[in-house]
């Protein structure tokens, strides 16, 4: 079967508008989560990770004079524009394009421009902006969307639909989702603390990101890194509550390992979902133990980005690629003391480590789970 390489990427987040800037901030253990005092989103201050509007306008002015785009569209278009600018051999008109988002321009529902609230409006925007012959595909699969989009991209390449695929992911921190997570009593009153004994729920965030997947090794200019395994599985248990046995996540992990043709002891690092809700983190710890991975170094990047929904697993996979390139691991920000019933090896401090294979996982509402194996050729 064809290999699918992670060739290049970009992240637009509160931690920077390039992957390099993001990685540098992770190295400094800098978080994007702040006390947000923005009445448009919430009537009281809350902790979240938002993209600065002035900084976004500045970046937007460089690529376009047209102000008729939403914040999310601007973030996505800037991300892809940067990806294209940095990779002259990437011709997006010849690529399959997959867009991962959970709520898209959901703010449009309150602002009376309801047509923008249709997710297809985003694929149209991206198509028109980059003058694509075919309409980008939208994948909307709750909190695993970004990871599943990478799996979908890999599958499209392996079944020879395209040689190259561009994955774009993005979601905003909106009143819509924040109010929903508040009604679930799931929002943390302080920056989130994944896997920690003192965790009190999620912090939401916003971000966009893009990735170039290719079957052509000639496109690879840095370390050779591929997605060697992927799988998703449903818990078949509850539409919002995580499975108590971590069933769907465990199945995804075992199938992804099998797909990559490796054993669980060949994984060097797990970049987990780790939302910092009591039940989610507990479920993940159980699944990783069932998969025989309790000693593998693990972190959640939610302490840096908050939960960026449809962008999260994509961003976390991008960071995983750079951890493989640089042979380094980042501390799981917010973590103090283990707060799950099964033992896992949470990364307390940044350190250098020779890395070959990373496991990326995500889980979401609807009982969905995804696992990816990201591997470096050495």
């Amino acid at each position: 079967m064809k290999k699918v390489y992670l060739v290049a990427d970009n992240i637009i987040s509160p931690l920077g508008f390039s992957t390099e800037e993001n990685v540098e901030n992770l190295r400094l253990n800098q978080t994007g989560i702040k006390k947000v005092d923005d009445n448009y989103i919430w009537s009281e201050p809350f902790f979240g990770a938002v993209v600065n509007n002035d900084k976004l306008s500045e970046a937007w002015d460089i690529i376009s004079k047209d102000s008729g785009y939403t914040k999310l569209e601007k973030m996505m278009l800037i991300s892809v524009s940067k990806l294209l600018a940095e990779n002259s051999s990437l011709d997006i008109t010849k690529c399959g394009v997959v867009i991962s988002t959970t709520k898209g321009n959901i703010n449009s529902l309150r602002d009376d421009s309801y047509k923008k609230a249709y997710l297809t409006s985003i694929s149209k925007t991206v198509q028109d902006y980059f003058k694509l012959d075919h309409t980008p595909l939208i994948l909307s699969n709750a909190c695993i969307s970004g990871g599943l989009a990478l799996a979908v991209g890999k599958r499209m390449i392996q079944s020879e639909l395209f040689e190259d695929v561009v994955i774009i992911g993005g979601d905003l921190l909106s009143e819509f989702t924040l109010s929903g997570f508040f009604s679930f009593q799931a929002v943390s009153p302080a920056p989130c603390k994944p896997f920690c004994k003192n965790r009190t729920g999620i912090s939401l965030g916003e971000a966009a990101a893009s990735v170039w997947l290719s079957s052509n090794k000639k496109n690879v200019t840095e370390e050779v890194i591929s997605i060697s395994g992927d799988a998703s599985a449903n818990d078949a248990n509850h539409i919002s509550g995580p499975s108590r046995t971590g069933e769907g996540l465990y199945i995804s992990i075992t199938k992804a390992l099998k797909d990559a043709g490796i054993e669980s002891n060949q994984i060097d690092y797990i970049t987990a979902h780790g939302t910092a809700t009591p039940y989610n983190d507990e479920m993940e710890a159980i699944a990783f133990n069932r998969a025989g991975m309790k000693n593998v170094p693990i972190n959640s990047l939610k302490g840096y980005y908050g939960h960026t929904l449809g962008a999260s697993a994509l961003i976390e996979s991008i960071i995983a690629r750079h951890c493989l390139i640089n042979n380094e691991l980042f501390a799981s920000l917010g973590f103090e003391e283990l707060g799950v019933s099964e033992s896992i090896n949470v990364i307390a401090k940044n350190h250098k480590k020779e890395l070959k294979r990373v496991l990326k996982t995500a889980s979401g509402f609807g009982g969905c789970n995804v696992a990816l194996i990201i591997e470096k050729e050495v």
Partner: protein
Amino acid sequence: MIKEKYYISDFCSIRDKKVFKNGEQLYIDSESDSLKDFGKGIYQYLELKYPKFHKMDELCKLGFLASEVLLRDSDKLDQDTALVLSNRSSSLDTDRKHQVSIQDREDFYPSPAVFVYTLPNIIMGEISIKNKMKSENAFFVTESFDADLMSKYSKILMDTGKATNVICGWVDLDNDKYDVFLAFLSKKGRIELTKEELNNLYNQ
């Protein structure tokens, strides 16, 4: 990678107050004037006893009922039957309900039971729970039913062994306008799986 031939073993649709299975009309309801009552009618016709049904939003009810019709009298289902669904309006029908509950800051009571349905993939969660399917899921949003995408993506899943069978289709609801079509894809059947055949059956 094995490239086998696949077939559309069964298919069903719910539209214009009617339910069809494999081209035959199964149920018609010209009396009920709300989607809720129409769905309840199908639920009773199928003699279902599943309290969770009543908690679902209207989009999930439609997808769930179609899956019940599709899988009725069928032993084809297994744990590795994947779900690949799509629509145009995502979960907008319920998104609007959630938006109404938060529109007024003085009367601000978002409901968790509504919010949980503001994601289109919850349909697949509901179908998976009912049928204990611990399988691959993907939810795509496209302007109209994309038979090419549905057949190609389903074939990829079966070719790579990620699924033994696939339930694919279209479950759309927007401002009371609904359109539901599901197909069961497997290695057995009469109609070979091609985008043309799938499109024909959708348009029947």
